[in-house]
């Protein structure tokens, strides 16, 4: 028996977001907008070399420049300990984090920070960078993931011994980890197959591409009350990481959440905050550091480039008998690519008896990768969904039909271990088949591709406070930065429980001293998990209000029921009392025991997995190799769309990023290991004229673990587009696309054979 959708009054309404007017008038304050009296500007010196030993850094000339107040290098930081620290979503290796923040013995990539200067103006700070003398001893470097895995590859870390291999190798290598899991017997499964397709797919490293560069303002105080203002996906995680690296207690640092101009995973870590705080300590002045766009590309995390070998077998009637994936992901300079989620998601859409996945996490002389929307999943989906497309061609079966026959459903045990509860994958496939787009005729040189995608979604530690004001209006305090309209969702859910108009509710994002710890804005968790905390806090408010009504009426608590924003007698037996509204009760709060404050702190479990199916039409210009996306439909199970416009927005935004990944975006390195395209001119993300309208269909199969059935939605929509676009191009040119991006020169050479 499936869980039925919950009837709601406010949840599901398209209200104007509470922070909307601030954001359309330019009033909203983002990371770089903060300004403190006496504030200095800081700049970071970055290695121009892909791999070099730092023999000596002489900062004396820079320090002597008029206007310079402080210079720091790796030597100014406390010694790095081998420990792990809370990164908001996962534990982070403190030593790697610190070395990536500011190089110590070696610079490991073009763009690796080696020193920082604070001065009275940005231009003086920049001039001072030129005066810092760094003596480098150049070392051989390696960029490509497969080259980095070779026996004789230049080594980045002489203490890296591959984990996950028994016995652990005694010789160091660039392979940080190997992982493997599976089910059944793939040899037997392939023996049962009528058709087997095996191919190797490659994707380039791509950047999250948020339009706001990283920015932080820090003010050190000698009495243990330092402050940081920054745009991040989680100011609590910024606090944990910064205090761990600077040997401080968490209570000694207060982190204020600025508005955040996009993150997509890339603002879950630290690049600037400890540097700014240390410069502030040294100079005695507040410090602002704002990255340039070039620094964002060279110094902050892209996602992994990948090589994914995939082999899938199926019978002529469309049953998948076996599947294998072997993936190699670039981690950048330090261990920690999303190889594991890549492995875990590879076959998650399907119920496959015999399957095996093997993954390698590989370091090379690139910036340390950071999370990027559904980390690791788009690359394996590209491979698996491309191979399935080819199988459907070979067995002459409709590609949606093939997926339908093998779709994961309630009760399916995913290869990574979870047994799915109520999920909506089949519903998305059905909606795709029924959509007019799926059967619309194609023009000349056009092709259609479909592809599916999965993401786990997470819950986790979440808090919320709700203050009832004396006049009956309400303030919600949320602990999580709002990147895409989550304030609106929180207000809708609070309004639903309190039974009052969302107009009566205001919301603010609390800093680390104003509300209890909460995990990151990441993992598609905020509307689900923090939303649950808001619901709990609102229920707490309702409970207290009902208690007070019971007191006034001199009846039992059970005799009071909350409806439409007021306490009512639960039945006529209780007595004949006029309802007491939230406003009535708030006005008498002082007499009844003080202000009503609702609070909750939960560890939200039961995040419902999300699935999507996308349909993409492209038109190929066979003369130039240019691909235009001419029609696109994204279908996704959202469980329950709290604010449908922002759910659609997540789907459309994910599609655009995926289209960029498929067609244009890539990190390009020269022979010296320097990034050749660190700017939006040469690293070209899709612009308005590159995209068509993006049609969306929200499917709602409720998540039984959420009071309104919510599932996370932010990450799923970037999983299918790589394959949806590639499959469409493959059909348009009748050749299989194995490598992204499908840029014009690459496609031309494929067309020309």
């Amino acid at each position: 028996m499936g869980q039925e959708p919950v009837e709601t009054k406010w949840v599901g309404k398209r209200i104007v977001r509470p922070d909307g007017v601030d954001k359309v008038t330019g009033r909203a304050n983002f990371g770089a907008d903060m300004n403190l009296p006496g504030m200095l500007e800081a700049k970071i010196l970055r290695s121009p070399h892909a791999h070099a030993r730092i023999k000596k850094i002489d900062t004396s000339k820079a320090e002597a420049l008029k206007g310079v107040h402080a210079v720091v290098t790796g030597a100014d930081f406390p010694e790095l300990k081998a420990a792990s620290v809370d990164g908001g979503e996962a534990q982070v290796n403190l030593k790697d984090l610190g070395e990536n923040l500011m190089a110590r013995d070696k610079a490991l990539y073009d763009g690796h920070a080696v020193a920082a200067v604070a001065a009275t103006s940005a231009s003086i700070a920049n001039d001072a960078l030129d005066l810092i003398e760094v003596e480098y001893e150049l070392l051989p470097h390696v960029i490509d993931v497969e080259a980095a895995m070779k026996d004789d590859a230049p080594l980045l870390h002489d203490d890296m011994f591959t984990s996950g291999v028994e016995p652990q190798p005694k010789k160091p290598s660039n392979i940080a980890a190997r992982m493997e899991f599976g089910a059944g017997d793939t040899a037997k499964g392939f023996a049962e197959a009528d058709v087997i397709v095996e191919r190797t797919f490659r994707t380039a490293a791509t950047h999250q591409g948020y339009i706001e560069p990283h920015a932080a303002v820090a003010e050190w105080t000698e009495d243990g009350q330092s402050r940081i203002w920054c745009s991040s996906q989680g100011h609590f995680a910024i606090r944990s990481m910064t205090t761990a690296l600077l040997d401080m207690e968490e209570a000694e640092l207060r982190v204020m959440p600025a508005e955040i101009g996009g993150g997509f995973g890339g603002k879950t870590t630290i690049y600037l905050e400890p540097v700014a705080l240390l410069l502030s300590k040294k100079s005695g002045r507040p410090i602002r550091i704002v990255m340039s766009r070039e620094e964002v590309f060279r110094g902050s995390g892209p996602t992994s480039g990948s090589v994914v070998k995939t082999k899938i077998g199926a019978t002529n009637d469309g049953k998948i008998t076996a599947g294998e994936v072997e993936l190699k992901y670039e981690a950048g300079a330090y261990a920690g690519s999303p190889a594991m989620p890549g492995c875990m998601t590879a076959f998650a859409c399907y119920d496959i008896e015999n399957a095996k996945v093997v993954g390698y996490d590989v370091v090379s002389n690139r910036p340390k990768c950071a999370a990027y929307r559904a980390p690791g999943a788009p690359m394996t989906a590209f491979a698996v969904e491309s191979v399935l497309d080819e199988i459907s061609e070979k067995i002459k079966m409709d590609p949606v039909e093939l997926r339908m026959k093998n779709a994961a459903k309630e009760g399916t045990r995913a290869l990574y271990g979870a047994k799915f509860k109520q999920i909506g994958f089949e519903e998305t496939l059905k909606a795709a088949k029924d959509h007019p787009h799926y059967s619309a005729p194609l023009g000349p040189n056009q092709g259609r591709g479909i592809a599916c995608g999965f993401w786990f979604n997470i819950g986790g530690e979440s808090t919320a406070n709700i203050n009832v004001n004396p006049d009956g209006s309400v303030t919600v305090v949320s602990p999580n930065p709002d990147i895409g309209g989550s304030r609106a969702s929180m207000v809708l859910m609070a309004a639903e429980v309190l039974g009052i108009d969302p107009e009566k509710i205001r919301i603010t994002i609390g800093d680390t001293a104003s509300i209890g710890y909460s995990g990151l804005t990441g993992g598609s968790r905020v509307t689900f998990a923090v939303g649950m905390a808001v619901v709990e806090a609102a229920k707490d408010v309702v409970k207290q209000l009902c208690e007070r009504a019971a007191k006034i009426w001199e009846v039992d608590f059970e005799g009071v029921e909350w409806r439409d924003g007021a306490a009512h007698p639960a039945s006529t037996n209780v007595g004949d009392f006029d309802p007491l509204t939230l406003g009535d009760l708030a006005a008498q709060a002082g007499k009844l025991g003080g202000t009503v404050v609702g609070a909750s702190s939960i560890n939200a479990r039961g995040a419902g997995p999300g699935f999507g199916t996308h349909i993409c039409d492209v038109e190929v210009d066979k003369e130039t190799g240019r691909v235009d996306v001419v029609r696109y439909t994204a279908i996704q199970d959202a469980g329950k769309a709290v604010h449908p416009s922002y759910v659609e927005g997540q789907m459309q935004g994910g599609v655009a990023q995926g289209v960029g990944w498929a067609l244009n975006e890539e990190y390009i390195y020269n022979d010296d290991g320097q990034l050749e395209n660190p700017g939006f001119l040469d690293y070209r993300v899709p612009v308005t004229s590159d995209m068509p309208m993006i049609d969306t269909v929200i499917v709602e199969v409720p998540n039984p673990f959420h009071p309104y059935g919510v599932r996370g939605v932010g990450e799923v929509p970037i999983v299918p587009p790589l394959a949806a676009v590639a499959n469409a191009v493959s059909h348009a040119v009748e050749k299989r696309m194995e490598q992204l991006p499908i840029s014009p020169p690459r496609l031309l050479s494929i067309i020309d054979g």
Partner: protein
Amino acid sequence: MSKIHVTTSVNGEEVEYLCEAQQTMLDVLRDELGLTGTKEGCSTGDCGACSVIVDGDVVCSCLMLGAEAEGRNVETIEGLAAPDHLHPVQKQFLEHAALQCGFCTPGFLVAAKALLDRNQNPTETEIRYWLAGNLCRCTGYDKIVRAVQDAAAEMRGA
């Protein structure tokens, strides 16, 4: 280095400032005049987050020098709304949820306003090409284009 004295009009009001010869209009707006609604996404003319209107034309303020504003008429996001009501394009952005993080939004609104000032009946293609210099990484542009279409309709009185 001596600074340059500039007299100009910003959002209809005469302002004077001193700027360095190499200082961009974007830096002047943000750092000298405290108008931080105009954003910096790249400083190389590639993202449009810094869009302002100068004498009726959309300009990347990161590519213009502060000194060049002498005697000109500069409009920024802060001047788009009247004290008691939003510009139709601001209103439609809110109605359509045409912003997620909102960082690109000031640039889009300024560029869209300049389009609507000269053409209140743009086609979808005209809107898409007019806004092609503004990057948005969050929305996929769909809702932005629709918001501009509806703002145009509102301004036509349709």
